[in-house]
């Protein structure tokens, strides 16, 4: 009978092989679509690789795309670790950007640049926390489903930033911009430093520091230990004296703060203003994919974010091809990668038992087992 069997222990190579295969399968599916729309998949993929990974500047841009994904990936990771499902990183990122740009504009030139940047980072994190506060409290005390609350708040946040820039004469909007509304530029001092002539900015360093910090928190602190217990079982956590409600709130706030930092990084390092068009490109949702593909490992978040960053970055490059490959191919690949990765999760945990493989489904047959 065709069936699945639980693997008793998972060989290490599986963890590498499965995501690689997921990506290859996603590329294969993408190829089918490309063929149907009259493009040569090999050319398209070659262009994508060249654009994102094969040149210094291309790779630098990939890193720029990866920067917010690392942070939103971590945001998803910390909440998923305790089986809290914050899928509102998208909205928390927007509000983080609102707060970061707001503080930078308020401070103006009254503080030295480094202080302004620090304030922006703090404000970004604060904004993300603020925006998840209500879902967090509702979850901790009323057991309100955080998936729904955080998801709905994403729309609220999107409408809010659009309103700030396009729908009102707010503090964030550039009063000089007439026909085409846009955000007010933050002062030059508040720009994140860049690395050489590339667009790689301080945000990447912050994201990498965040990875190290999260790793440390998870593995070396009481807070991380409590997260681990709570992630295993709430009842065990209560038994062990973990203040469960406070932990739920704290973890969600941490998650929101990381997403908010990603918003601050976009403002300070990339668009230099509150720019809905630059923010609303699904970086928060992509964080969920990053966390899932990284199997909730902080270290792997970096690699996965760079891979997805490359795919996203290449999307832009594709448009410059003579035959104008639609940019959406990048979005589609991202989705396909997630689906295949989730699907292949089954193969990590289970082994397929084919109809034609006979005998007992065990490493050793009963006879062998008995002989030992």
């Amino acid at each position, binding site marked *: 009978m065709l069936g699945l069997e639980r*693997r008793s222990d998972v060989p290490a190579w599986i963890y590498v092989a499965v995501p690689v295969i997921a990506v290859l399968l996603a590329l294969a599916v993408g190829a089918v679509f490309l063929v149907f729309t009259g493009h040569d998949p090999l050319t398209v993929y070659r262009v994508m690789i060249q654009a994102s990974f094969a040149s210094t500047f291309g790779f630098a841009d990939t890193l720029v795309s990866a920067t917010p994904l690392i942070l939103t990936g971590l945001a998803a990771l910390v909440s998923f670790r305790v089986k809290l499902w914050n899928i509102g990183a998208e909205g928390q990122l927007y509000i983080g950007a609102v707060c970061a740009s707001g503080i930078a504009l308020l401070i103006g030139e009254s503080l030295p640049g480094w202080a302004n940047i620090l304030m922006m980072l703090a404000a970004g994190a604060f904004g993300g926390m603020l925006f998840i506060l209500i879902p967090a409290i509702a979850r901790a005390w009323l057991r309100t489903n955080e998936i729904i609350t955080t998801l709905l708040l994403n729309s609220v946040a999107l409408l809010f930033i659009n309103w700030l820039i396009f729908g009102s004469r707010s503090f964030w909007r550039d009063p000089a911009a007439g026909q085409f509304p846009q955000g007010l530029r933050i002062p030059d001092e508040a720009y994140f430093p860049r690395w050489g002539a590339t667009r790689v900015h301080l945000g990447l360093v912050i994201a990498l520091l965040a990875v190290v910090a999260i790793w440390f928190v998870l593995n*070396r*602190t009481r807070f991380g*230990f409590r997260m681990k217990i709570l992630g295993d*079982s709430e009842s065990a956590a209560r038994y062990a*004296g973990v203040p469960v409600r406070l932990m739920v709130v704290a973890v969600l706030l941490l998650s929101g703060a990381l997403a908010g930092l990603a918003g601050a990084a976009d403002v300070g390092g990339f668009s230099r203003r509150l720019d809905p068009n630059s923010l609303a490109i699904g970086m928060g949702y992509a964080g969920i994919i990053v966390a899932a593909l990284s199997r909730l490992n902080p270290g792997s978040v970096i690699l996965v974010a760079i891979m997805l960053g490359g795919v996203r970055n290449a999307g832009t490059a594709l448009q410059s091809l003579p035959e104008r490959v639609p940019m959406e191919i990048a979005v589609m690949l991202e989705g396909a990668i997630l689906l295949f990765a989730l699907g292949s999760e089954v193969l990590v945990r289970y082994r397929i038992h084919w109809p034609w493989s006979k005998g007992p489904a065990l490493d050793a047959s*009963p006879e062998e087992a008995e002989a030992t």
Partner: protein
Amino acid sequence: MPTTADDHPAGTTNGPGRDPVVEAHGIYKTFPGVVANADVDLRLERGEVHALLGENGAGKSTLASVLTGLYQPDAGEIRLDGRPVVLRSPREALAHGIGMVHQHFKLVKRFTVAENVALGDRTQPILMSAPDVHRSVVELSERYGLPVRPDAVVGDLTVGEQQRVEIVKTLYRGVDVLLLDEPTSVLTPQETEALFDTVRAMAADGKAVVFISHKLHEVLSIADTITVMRDGGIAGNVDAADTSVRELAQLMVGREVMMEAPGGDGQAGEVVLELDDVSVDERSRRGRLDQLSMTVRAGEVVGIAGVSGNGQRPLAEVAAGLIEPDRGRVRVNGRDVTGRPRAARKAGLSYVPEDRIGTGLASSLSVAENLQLTRAHRPLLDRGRWSTDARRLMEEFDIRAPGPSTTTSSLSGGNIQKVLLARELAADPDVIVAASPTRGLDVGAIEFVRQLLAQRREQGCGVLLISEDLDEIRALSDRILVLYEGRIVHECAAEDSDVTELGLAMAGAGS
């Protein structure tokens, strides 16, 4: 309408006929990493009560599931009346007259007894004929001594009653062979006696009854034939008439065991745990407490007997400070710790909860981590010390695990419980609250756990032992309290405890 086999009208039995009715030959069943059944032979005859005895994990349930079509054997053959058959599903097994009552019931709580009985019977027309089903239920329950009301809603019934519904359900489908998987684990002594009468009536009617259990006394008193399983294989097959508890225990474990923990003469000291007029009234807590007062003294084991759901869980959790009672106080060593678990621990209390996995232990964590679960920690952890601690405790408590970083869930049941006990006892408590500390363990591990508790008692620790296993309560306790509907309804010294009296008290009929 397609039917899978010849239809059995309700209550039909085939009179005593050719033996054996069911034979299993060379059954192998493996799960990844586990050989659950290895070369198992079993022979069931009409009119006999055949006990399947074995420690937990011996493979009893697996064998029963193979015989009832739930699992397909990897190798081996099942014969019915001498003819080989393949049972592809429980439905097919039922069609062949083989039914099973599982450890976990499979009833629809919102349905009535009659509806549950009729459920899954494909001979029923789409609109079932309620009077017919009712009549059959009444008839069967009278014939086999299984008092159930056909129109009662199953969710309102006690566990014992639900079990009767399960049995009626299989009888209604006309089984000739009935397998009961650990049926007494949820019953009071009186209910157990009633079940035994039913089992005897079914056997007298020519049915083959397989009675699965790990309790030696029970098996001896009900079975005609006893097949003992160990490690997935058959350890022996004996006639109940010429065997003994000792022999059976030895077959089960593979060596001599000592089940009575050494009890010294009780010189109880200071009060170490005191519950003072405690009430808990919360439905979600599975049971309530009603103005309950009790004490545990140093060097004494107080056993709480009772049918599960009569307040055991809130009693344990209130004592451990995990839930705040609606009224009353809890004191450990004289200190008020009501509703404050960490204060209770600081005052010298250890708690071994009933749910090891999921409450007492976080099973996806490592052994070393679980050994630290209830300790107070600084903000930064000293993991190096954790693994030295773990190694020491693993040695001291004989925890068989590859190492401190092994995932706890991969250990065997006995070793999992040892991890929990090691942590709780290493805290050097003055009072231990232990809820069902040996439930589901194999004989070897039960022996170990009991010795540990007895040894602590010797050293002057007070123990509050909450268990549904009356034998265990009687073997370990100095004093026995019977808990019924949240109140202590009976109290006696363990030496002069009387099973009948205890059983009556447990059923709420105490003096």
